[in-house]
């Protein structure tokens, strides 16, 4: 049965339940494995990264599969997928794979095919000059940035995603193509702290953030929102019931209690937060999810706010690059960014990355005590001398 072309296809709006199929679930994965993957399933012995973006996996059967990993955009059009298909048909018997981090992987079974594929991929550029399928993203480097929807398709973002990712990856391109860092650096991006991208355990996380409390649309709130739900949605209890002068039910907000999480807006469209000056980017660093050597860690807020300077976010790019370069220069082999920061001490992290430490970086939410330093072990940095000077401890 071919795809239909009638306006509503085979769907009959007068009998919506007719021939309805539901609960099919995903298609079965096995049919999409290339024959060499099927044959060697569970039999892989080891792998090697031959060069950045190029892997070989060797099976106990003696088979080898060569994988070329290419950076891709999470947002793409059918034209791009058709080009991916053209490449997969030409070199890979019609098979292709996408990774969790929005990379594209092409697999072949001989070194000759691998060389031809590599050449083909690197020759493909958009008419305006950017690579379509840059090879890289393996080993001790920066791989693709996982991200969220941003202004492309979301109703709650505090910044845009695709543009920031493009700008940052342009800046980190050498690290994508090289394996020169002490360990891998995973950069992730989410446009608001709903974090549908769950960036909170990344080496570097870029997070859109609001800084102005919601505006209450008193005229419509009572009609479009469940007031008790809006009140209950606030983690700090800043929202309470209220009435307008003409007696309409609405809510009022204790603004000094707002932490700008936007949870109320998720529950109620009549309390928008977004604002050109208020919105911007928070940078977190030092998280990871791998259990290698040290246990998984949360990322920590290291820059409370940078402006949304569209489309290239120069302040964000500059900060990310400073962090990556300081880490590259100073960390030991195998040390993840967070492990490095912990070894040298966070005070040294701020010094080496040339990032100012502000009061916003000291936790004052619940359980903040866990982050207080209750020890006399610390290192002297300029930030420490400033405190001593301010307290009259030194000249």
């Amino acid at each position, binding site marked *: 049965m071919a795809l239909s072309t009638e306006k509503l296809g085979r769907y009959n709006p007068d009998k919506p339940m007719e021939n309805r199929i539901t609960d099919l679930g995903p298609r079965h994965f096995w049919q999409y494995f290339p024959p060499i993957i099927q044959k060697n399933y*569970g039999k892989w012995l080891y792998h090697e990264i031959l060069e950045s973006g190029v892997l070989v996996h060797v099976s106990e059967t003696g088979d080898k599969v060569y994988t070329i990993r290419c950076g891709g955009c999470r947002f793409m059009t059918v034209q791009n997928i058709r080009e*991916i298909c053209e490449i997969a048909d030409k070199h890979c018997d019609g098979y292709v794979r996408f990774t969790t981090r929005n990379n594209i992987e092409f697999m072949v079974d001989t070194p000759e095919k691998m060389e031809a594929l590599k050449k083909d991929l690197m020759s493909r550029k958009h008419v305006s000059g950017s690579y379509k399928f840059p090879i890289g993203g393996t080993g001790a480097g920066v791989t693709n940035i996982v991200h969220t929807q941003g202004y492309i398709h979301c109703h709650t973002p505090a910044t845009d995603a695709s543009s920031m990712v493009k700008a940052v990856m342009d800046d980190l391109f050498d690290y994508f193509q090289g394996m020169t860092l002490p360990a891998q650096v995973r950069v992730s991006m989410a446009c608001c702290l709903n974090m549908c991208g769950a960036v909170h355990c990344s080496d570097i996380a870029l997070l859109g953030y609001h800084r102005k409390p919601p505006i209450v649309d008193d005229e419509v709130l009572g009609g479009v929102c469940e007031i008790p739900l809006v009140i209950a949605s606030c983690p700090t209890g800043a929202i309470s019931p209220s009435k307008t002068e003409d007696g309409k039910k609405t809510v009022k907000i204790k603004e000094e209690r707002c932490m700008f999480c936007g949870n109320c807006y998720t529950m109620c469209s009549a309390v928008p937060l977004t604002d050109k000056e208020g919105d911007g980017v928070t940078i977190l660093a030092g998280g990871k999810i791998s259990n290698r050597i040290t246990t998984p860690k949360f990322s920590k807020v290291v820059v409370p706010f940078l402006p949304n300077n569209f489309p290239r976010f120069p302040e964000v790019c500059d900060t990310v690059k400073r962090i990556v370069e300081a880490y590259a220069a100073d960390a030991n082999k195998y040390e993840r960014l967070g492990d490095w920061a912990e070894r040298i001490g966070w005070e040294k992290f701020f010094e080496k990355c040339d990032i100012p430490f502000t009061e916003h970086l000291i936790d004052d939410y619940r359980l903040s005590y866990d982050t207080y330093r209750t020890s006399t072990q610390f290192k002297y940095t300029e930030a420490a001398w400033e405190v001593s000077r301010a307290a009259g401890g030194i000249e």
Partner: protein
Amino acid sequence: MAFEPKEPQKKLKYKELRIYSDEELNNYTEEELKDFKCKHDIPDLDELEKGPWPSFVADAKREALHRRKLAEDRMMVGRDVVEDLMGILQLSFDHGETHWKHGGIVGVFGYGGGVIGRYSDVPEQFPSIVHFHTLRVNQPNSKFYNTDYLRTLCDLWEYRGSGMLNMHGSTGDIIFLGTTTEQLEPVFYELGHVLQQDLGGSGSNLRTPSCCLGKARCEWSCIDTQDMCYELTHFYQDELHRPAFPYKFKFKFDGCPNGCVASIARADMSFIGTWKDNIRIDQEAVQAYIGGELKPNAGAHSGRDWGKFDIQKEVINLCPTKCMWMEDGKLMIDNKECVRCMHCINVMPRALRPGSDTGCSILCGGKAPILEGAQMSMLTIPFMKCEPPYDNIKDVVDKIWDWWMEEGRNRERLGELIQRHGVPKFLEILDIPPMPQMVTEPRSNPYIFWKEEDVEGGWKRSIEDYRARHKR
């Protein structure tokens, strides 16, 4: 070995299913693309075409031009959707604010998830994207594809939608970005009837589970990630499509503790492959690493000269439990002290392999910050055999869901419920004893919630008896 699908899978042949001819697919020249000008003025987007990283704007322009040159009756939603999307993005840059309205109740009959309603708040300026709803399409587990499937999907989505999508969304689905309310049912019908393909989850239900590539192309995977993911996704279709939960619920399957799908950070239930016997050692390969014949780290650090490989410094000293040493030229491991962190295996993949008595650890409660702050999953069950049909795992899932659906507040994730009720309550629900592995250290405050049955003689006491011993 091979895995079998639940239902026989229709073989999809693009040439039998396709909508567009080759001429239609290749309907513009490179020259035309170079000269393409979007109908809206989009200076910031034009800027994003520069630089080496793939430009999503350059890609969008291809589709915009392609649609301009298709015949009017060869697409069921506006010709200008891509150009209008670029326009609204520019407007959002100008205003520093999104122009997508809040939600909207749309969907397909019988499902409470899989479709996210989206409307623009500037309908006059961008008429072709006034409705611009998203569909989530449940990806094949670990995202291997063939081109027959992908090309068919492309024709369907170009014909009945915007031709723009995400490969893939954060949770793992293929995201179809933008179609009209009218086309939602037709897209769903074609997906089901022609592609034998279902939607994924959204809202307060089981979200589309996802997994790493597992044993398909990784020597470290301790579990059949795709098969587990497939089985549980199919088994829990009702929970995936019909929201009955307090909030979202995520399953993710990592083949080993390296954690390539980040299940610890973002799944309410993280299934992570592990082993309970010994790391397999090939002593000859160990010597080959020491002698420099084998590239350490599978070449992952080869972009910089780190000097000669030093097994003492790079492996033995970095072992978190210091359970490795060299003895008579052999690498020794005290496996009962090993915490399976994967470092030594990552550094010397040809010499060391995970054990062969494998299963998974189950960790619970991971989530992003909303509402009560971010949490990572907590080690709950240290080792679980993973054999189809995974009934032991389904039993754990069912116990957790029964409790969470009974006790969970609106928009309370599992991790928050565990915090609110305490881990001891959670263990009681699961009917498992506590173990020190569940915590990094025991509590430092002594505020223990003793239960009445814990205390000899119970809590019922008479004040008269007390007063007989103690005057007022």
